[in-house]
């Protein structure tokens, strides 16, 4: 048999060998389009956004000689002539738009710096006989003021901690150290705290409500289970904007709830239920409840009743069985459901925007605000770094937990 089929076998093994080689190649080739797409349209845009939070080369690129000179200066002695020479030389050749950009960066250090720089750049063109220092001081006496040069010194490096510090309500002082910004300017620690707090409250409310619901569904007979799950899925499937519009119609001052309250005589003034923190909590809990009920349910339904039954038969009381047997079994699922919900809420934009007031806006709102309203990319990016860090920490915890719960299941 062997002698007859040698050629066939050869051909086959040749083909099989080719296929074995082509198999992995083809499979990895199949992975490539998706990976490339995700790198270019997901990873790259986000990284280049986040980079803007620390990379701000406007001043260095527009005023290269000044940047070098100001960094060579010690920052505490009188500004040397070399600085004035460099600035005049830079401004003479700089493009108008670049000067405005560099001015905007400098304006974050000292308000009015932008107009000073633009004014100086356009005034310089006229005469050139005087020495640079006199020229600049003649255009504006501020150039004698050392604080403008120390501000320039902070803005000169392309890699700057400015935006990150700003996002934490900190700043570099003239003395070189880092300190808190003036109390009236401090906003972002408050915003971060608020984002974390709102997420915590929403997650806690959802936990308290979702636990009994998920338990009740998992304890129901299979036929009821399907129906009850459908009742959870229906709002889950309803588009977010539809749900938000429903809450506005219900809760606004002349909305359905207030009409009912007024009509029944419970109140004689409309109650403000929306465009404040109450509205944010109501709408958020409505959005997040299915996100919690569904994973809780899937953990609970997998737990055999034999465990609790065994505990009862061994004489454990109801609460004791719950705490010592049932809760440890569902715990990993509960934790990961809570973390996931927390991650989703902490990055939310639309819900607080539409049903919250100005004091209820979270990190996302400010990222959008500094992108669209004031076009302060650096600050928007620094806040994005802050938010991404929160999310990464939580996802890391989630991953750790996932591994832990796997161990529990194995054990």
């Amino acid at each position, binding site marked *: 048999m062997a002698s007859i089929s040698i050629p066939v076998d050869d051909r086959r093994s040749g083909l099989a060998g080719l296929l074995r080689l082509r198999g992995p190649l083809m499979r990895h080739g199949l992975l490539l389009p998706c990976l490339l797409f995700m790198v270019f349209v997901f990873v790259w845009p986000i990284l280049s956004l986040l980079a803007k939070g620390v990379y701000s080369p406007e001043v260095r690129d527009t005023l290269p000689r000044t940047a070098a000179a100001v960094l060579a200066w010690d920052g505490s002695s009188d500004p040397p002539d070399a600085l004035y020479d460099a600035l005049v030389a830079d401004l003479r050749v700089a493009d108008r738009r670049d000067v405005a950009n560099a001015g905007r960066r400098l304006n974050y250090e000292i308000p009015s710096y932008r107009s000073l720089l633009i004014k100086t750049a356009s005034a310089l063109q006229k005469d050139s006989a005087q020495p640079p220092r006199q020229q600049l001081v003649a255009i504006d006496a501020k150039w004698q003021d050392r604080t403008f040069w120390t501000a320039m010194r902070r803005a000169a490096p392309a890699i700057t901690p400015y935006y990150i510090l700003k996002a934490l309500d900190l700043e570099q002082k003239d003395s070189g150290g880092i300190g808190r910004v003036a109390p009236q300017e401090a906003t972002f620690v408050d915003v971060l705290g608020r984002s974390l707090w709102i997420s915590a409250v929403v997650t806690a409310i959802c936990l308290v409500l979702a636990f009994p619901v998920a338990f009740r569904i998992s304890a129901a007979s299979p036929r009821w289970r399907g129906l009850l799950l459908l009742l959870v899925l229906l709002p889950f499937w309803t588009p977010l904007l539809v749900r938000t*519009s429903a809450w506005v*119609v219900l809760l606004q001052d002349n909305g359905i709830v207030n009409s009912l309250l007024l009509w029944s005589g419970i109140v004689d003034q409309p109650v403000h239920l929306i465009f404040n923190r109450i509205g944010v909590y109501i709408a958020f809990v409505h959005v997040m409840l299915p996100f919690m009920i569904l994973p809780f349910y899937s953990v609970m339904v997998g737990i055999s009743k034999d465990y609790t039954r065994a505990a009862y038969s061994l004489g454990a009381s109801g609460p004791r069985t719950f705490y010592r047997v049932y809760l440890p079994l569902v715990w990993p699922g509960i934790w990961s459901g809570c973390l996931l919900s927390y991650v989703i809420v902490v990055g939310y934009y639309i819900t607080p925007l539409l049903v919250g007031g100005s004091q209820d806006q979270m990190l996302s709102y400010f990222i959008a605000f500094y992108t669209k309203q004031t076009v302060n990319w650096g600050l928007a990016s620094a806040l994005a770094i802050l938010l991404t860090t929160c999310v990464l920490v939580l996802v890391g915890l989630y991953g750790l937990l996932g591994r832990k719960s796997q161990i529990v299941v194995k054990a």
Partner: protein
Amino acid sequence: MSGSSTHKPRPDIWRTLASVVTVLVFLFLLVPIAAVLPLSFSSGSFLSYPMPGLSLRWYEELLTNYKWLLALKNSAVVGVGAAALSTVLGLSAAIAMNGLGPRARAIVNGFLIAPMVMPVIIMAVGLYLFLSDLGLAGTITGMILAHTVIGTPYVVISATAALQNFDMQLIRAAKSLGASPWMAYRRVMLPAIRPAIVAGSLFAFVASFDEVVIVLFLAGPGQVTLPVRLFEGIRDELTPVVIAAAAVMISISVGLMTVIEILRRKSVARRGMA
């Protein structure tokens, strides 16, 4: 409901309490939507009860108003485009991942589903920056690319789950019977996981259809989608037309999700057979 349990578990108060909470939560989840949607059939223009009468005038306005029709068209085009692209990318990635070792697969999988936990605002701003540089901000193409990022994870998850339960021996059997690898994949593997693929791409469509933040950043006046029109309606002035649009959106979303759920069950049933 109670007859099936033979043992006497925890005290009845807790069970009753759980039932009460469950009923209240269901009311909280469903009543707002159910209470508001009928207002789209009101003949008056105020969003409150009692309605002065019933009419279809708001639906008529919705279907004759150029802006709403454009938004509907944009939503459909972007959704279909993003779903198609997500399906091609996600399915090929899922097939490739099936051949990887467990560790490599976990890493690739984590990477591909990362858009699900990334705050949308960061994706929106990043994509705005990126697509502006490419000259694609304010274009339907740009929006399709952006929505493909959020749609692909759904296809990957759905297809991976189906493939894990697919018996690769069948491919080997097909090859040994003389089928080319392409033929084996197309005629043996694809039919087996088709419900999961369809479910995944419908999911990608719904994700795009429901998405508002990225569109708010990327769309010019000509690219506005239904959720963004709804957003503007809520922010500027809520009228029964907006509620009528909401009713249309809900029908489309819930309809598609029902199909997905049916397909998912079908796919589970298929696994049961194998």
